[in-house]
Structure formats: structure tokens, C-alpha cells
């Protein structure tokens, strides 16, 4: 297989991965934007932030997810977008792991404000899979030869 073919395959895979990961963040963010109060309750139940930061965090994080997800799909500012995506995923995994270790029976708050969405090792496994894909995008973006073209602009 020639180098150009390998680059083409990576380009196609990276576009698919961008759309999937971007879609995941947008899907995760919108319910939390629509019901910020319930999401703030989920953030409180994690017991990781001081009270004064909970509402600000609950207001801001869903929008960050939607914006990062959108930028990822469109292909805007890919370096910053992909780094933020990875940082967010690492934060989510760490937060879930800390509370599983504490034995807390809490709602994940990952994709909805539904209290039935309880955290467990499956949550971490799911997030690790997403993180793996985002690390792949990190690799793609910072090795310019296989950076995929964007829909509207070139990076």
C-alpha cells in the first residue's frame, strides 16, 4: 500500500471520527443547555467543585461541548478544538472514576439530566473509547500530512 493511499485512508477515517465525536458532544450538550438546573444538581452530586462554581460550571460546560463538537465537525481551529476535546474527555473520566471509587450512587449527567443514568465502570469504558478516538484525531491534526480538509475551510 502506497503512502498516498495510507494518507487517503487516514483522511477518510478522520472525517468520520470528527463527525461522530462532534455529534456525541453536541448530543450531550443540548439536553444540559435545555435543563441547566437539573444538570447543576448532577454536578453538585459529584462533590468535586465548591458550591460557588457549580452553577457557573453547569451553565458553561454544555455550551463548551456544543461549540467544540460543532467546530470539530466543521473543522474550525482544529488544533485548539481537538486539544479541548481531549482535555474534556480526560476530565469526565477522572470525575466518574473518583466518584465510583467513593462508592457514590449518582447520576452520570453525561447525556441527560435523567437521574436514572447511573455511573458505573461501563461509563468509564464508554468514555475511554471516545477518548481513544479523540487521541487519534490529535495525532491526525498535529501531523500535517494527513490533516483532513474541512467542509468549508482548510486548516
Amino acid at each position, binding site marked *: 500500500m502506497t503512502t498516498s493511499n495510507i494518507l487517503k485512508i487516514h483522511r477518510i477515517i478522520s472525517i468520520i471520527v470528527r463527525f461522530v465525536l462532534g455529534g456525541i458532544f453536541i448530543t450531550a450538550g443540548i439536553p444540559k*443547555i435545555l435543563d441547566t*438546573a437539573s444538570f447543576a444538581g448532577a454536578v*453538585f452530586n459529584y462533590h468535586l467543585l465548591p458550591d460557588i462554581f457549580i452553577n457557573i460550571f453547569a451553565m458553561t460546560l454544555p455550551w463548551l461541548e456544543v461549540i467544540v463538537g460543532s*467546530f470539530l465537525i466543521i473543522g474550525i481551529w482544529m488544533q485548539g478544538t481537538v486539544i479541548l476535546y481531549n482535555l474534556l474527555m480526560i476530565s469526565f473520566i477522572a470525575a466518574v472514576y473518583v466518584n465510583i471509587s467513593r462508592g*457514590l450512587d449518582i447520576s452520570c449527567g453525561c447525556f441527560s439530566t435523567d*437521574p*436514572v443514568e447511573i455511573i458505573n465502570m461501563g461509563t468509564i469504558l464508554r468514555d475511554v473509547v471516545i477518548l481513544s478516538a479523540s487521541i487519534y484525531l490529535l495525532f491526525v491534526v498535529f501531523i500535517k500530512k494527513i490533516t483532513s480538509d474541512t467542509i468549508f475551510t482548510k486548516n
Partner: protein
Amino acid sequence: MKALWQIPIILIITICIAFGYNQIRANTIPLMCSWSENISGNTFSEYVSTISVDEAAALLNNNDAVFIDARPEPFYNQGHIQGALCLPWHQAEEKCFDVIENIPPDKNIITYCDGESCVLSDKLAVFLCDLGFEQVHTLVNGWTIWNQNNLPIDLPKISQ
């Protein structure tokens, strides 16, 4: 590296949109809120108290209490305190009357969930007090404590 300016700009855009949207939305939330005080302040009425696992076990032995599991139903189905009723907090309004219709208002009720900082049992206890029950108690971290003390539980039947 472009990320050095891209990341701060993305964060600034996010904060502006988030705060702006919060101001114009119908159900605006305050920027700061004393969550811990609000939870503890609104949780307990004068009729709600915590109960120790030994006292709860004694009441179970004497059939002097009704246990109500405040956890989501899937967790109840995996195992619960012997004889406990299932009334998940997030479904309390829909299901309460089916669950509590035969419970006298002066009967001891013990709500429980799981986890030291789980507030489901507290919220359910206050809810039941508001319905008129006079002797409502919460067993903090009930499911874990109950199992640690090897007290009677109901487990799902394994189909053959």
C-alpha cells in the same frame, strides 16, 4: 502553535454565549448558589430524623416499620431491604399513591438509598412528610450499611 490562541478564544466565546443565554432564557439560574445549605436546609422537616441501622433492624424484626427504597427501580430489582417498597425519588409524584395507600399516617417509615452523600432518601422523606406521614426516618447510606451488617434482604429470583 495555533492552539495557544485558539483555546482561549473558544473558551471566551463559550462563556459569552453561556452567560448571555442564561440571561435571556425563561428559567434563568443564579450565577452562584449555596447548594450544600439548600440541600440540608430543605431536606429535613421536624418529622424527619435519621435512624441507626440497629434501630432500623429492630423495627423490621418487630414489623413496626415500612421501608421505602428511594433508588431507581433497576437498583431496587437487583436487591433491597427485606419487604421494602419501591418508590424512586424521581417518580415519587407519579407512583406515591400506589405505594403508600395502605400505610397508616402514624406508621414508622424508613427511607433509604445508597451512598454517604446520596440525597434521594432525604428528599423522599420530606416528600412523605408533606403528604401527612408523621414518623418518617432516613437510614443514611442504607443499602450499603444494611448489607455490611448482614441484615435481611430480598434478592431477585434467578429464573431456571
